[in-house]
């Protein structure tokens, strides 16, 4: 079997400015934050980020990496709106394609299944159609003749998701309660990366969780990176909960040049091991959880 292990730097090296990048997880849950931090400190620019948005979106906007965001929401869960994304939108520095979260799902599914669109009622009558003038309707070819939204495939140049366990061949295991849409992000993408809390031997999966937790097949992955604490500060249960204190400090740095400068210097202009050491030093809850 192919050995797909790689480093964060190698992952970022596969990407180019202007690419459309899908990011797995949901809100402030199981986001591939180590990869997001690596993107933030890279030379890449003009990215289109496709995400069930959380701090991945806000952080990349604040780092000046984003041209356009494709989302249904951008939230930190315990903090309703990511203020970094808010600042970027209110400052007019990023473009937004906002769709219903079910439309978003169908866009990924269409891309995964290599069809140009999938039909849905979602979006009909709403301003999703007004603010996205490229969206089209489709008329049912059957007797009902219903006119539905034709959600276009959300084709991705690359996708990154974060899982609890993975093996060197790129199979991934999600031990938390919701796999979200991670398999579809990978299925929709040309270059497909999995980051993981822990790289394990394939034979170890069965001891970690039941069969249905082994939900990312190696059919969907090109590269796998072991990044312990790699979802910090988002939730990565059962490995660790969200680091609420850290998330609060991230949110408070929005729109404050000095606070953001400090945050950036301490947490973004450093490599991942230095970041992990810094949060351990800060004694935050998630770091304690991750270290167990």
């Amino acid at each position, binding site marked *: 079997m192919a050995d797909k292990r790689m480093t964060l730097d190698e992952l970022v090296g596969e990407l180019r400015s202007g690419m459309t990048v899908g990011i797995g997880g949901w809100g402030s849950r199981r986001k591939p934050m180590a990869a997001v931090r690596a993107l933030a400190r890279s030379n890449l620019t003009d990215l289109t980020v496709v995400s069930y948005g959380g701090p991945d979106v806000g952080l990349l906007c604040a780092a000046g990496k984003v041209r356009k965001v494709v989302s249904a929401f951008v939230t930190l869960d315990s903090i309703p709106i990511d203020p970094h994304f808010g600042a970027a939108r209110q400052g007019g520095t990023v473009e937004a394609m906002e769709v219903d979260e079910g439309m978003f799902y169908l866009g990924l599914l269409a891309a995964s299944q290599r069809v140009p669109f999938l039909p849905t*009622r979602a979006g009909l009558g709403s301003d999703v159609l007004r603010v996205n003038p490229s969206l089209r309707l489709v008329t049912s070819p059957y007797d009902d003749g219903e006119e539905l939204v034709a959600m276009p495939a959300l084709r991705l140049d690359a996708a990154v998701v974060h899982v609890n366990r993975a093996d060197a061949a790129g199979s991934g295991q999600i031990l938390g309660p919701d796999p979200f849409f991670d398999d579809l992000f990978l299925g929709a993408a040309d270059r497909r990366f999995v980051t993981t809390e822990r790289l394990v031997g394939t034979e170890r999966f069965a001891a970690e969780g039941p069969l249905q937790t082994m939900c990312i097949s190696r059919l969907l992955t090109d590269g796998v990176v072991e990044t312990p604490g790699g979802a910090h500060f988002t939730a990565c249960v059962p490995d660790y909960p969200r680091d609420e204190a850290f998330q609060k400090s991230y949110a408070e740095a929005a729109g404050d040049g000095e606070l953001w400068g400090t945050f950036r210097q301490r947490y973004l202009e450093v490599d991942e091991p230095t970041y992990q050491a810094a949060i351990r030093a800060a004694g935050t809850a998630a770091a304690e959880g991750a270290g167990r």
Partner: protein
Amino acid sequence: MSQAGSGGGSGAAADVSRAEYCAVACADVFRGNGEVMASAFGTAPAIGARLAKLTFSPDLVLTDGDAALVAGAPALGAAPSGLVLESHMPYRRVFDVVWSGRRNLIMMASQIDRDGNQNISAIGDWDRPTAQLIGVRGAPGNTVNHSTSYWVPRHSPRSFVAQVDVVSGVGYARAAAAGPAATRYHEIHRVVSDLGVFDFETPERVMRLRSVHPGVTVDQVVAATGFDLFIPERVAETRPPSTEELRLIRDVLDSRRLRDREVPA
């Protein structure tokens, strides 16, 4: 006019708080529902859905707010370890429920207008909003697939507006204009605010004052509403909770009085 909805006799109306009237009005949104998934955003709706399940709509299906359906009606803020789970409901499966119509929902609204359009996306110009909100989330799909109601804890001309800035949840006129595929399963059932209860039971399907909470005048509601509200000749008062409902709210579902933080006494 007002009536107790379930057994237990009428409540001691004198000491019923505004938040408790709101919770009961939210519970009534789920009245008559059978086996549907009740989703409720905000404190009063969260109490309401649980209260409905414990009284007049026992077959309601509640979620744990994460990826599962729960048995019973857990108290607000109950520890996850104490919940009895009855089914797996990850986000992807939620769309199966939404699109099959087996759901009833109370969402919140940053803005709502006379036609029942709701906005949770952005305030101001789309290209450069004055305030970015959470995003449309599932509102467009929810509103054209199953009954949707709204909860607005602070009724003001800033929340009840002439026209919402970004139509997220779809109101009656917009659904009608979009055609039969949009109207087929569309219903905006109720709007509950801290001042009263509203519906769209008018010939033109525009917002109508259905009841005022005790202590609120019709003039107060009109003054706090940024559009021409349909006011019937006789306006009822929102029904009080029954004694049993009051006990469930106070002793079982929300003993920590989270409801008072949302709607101050």
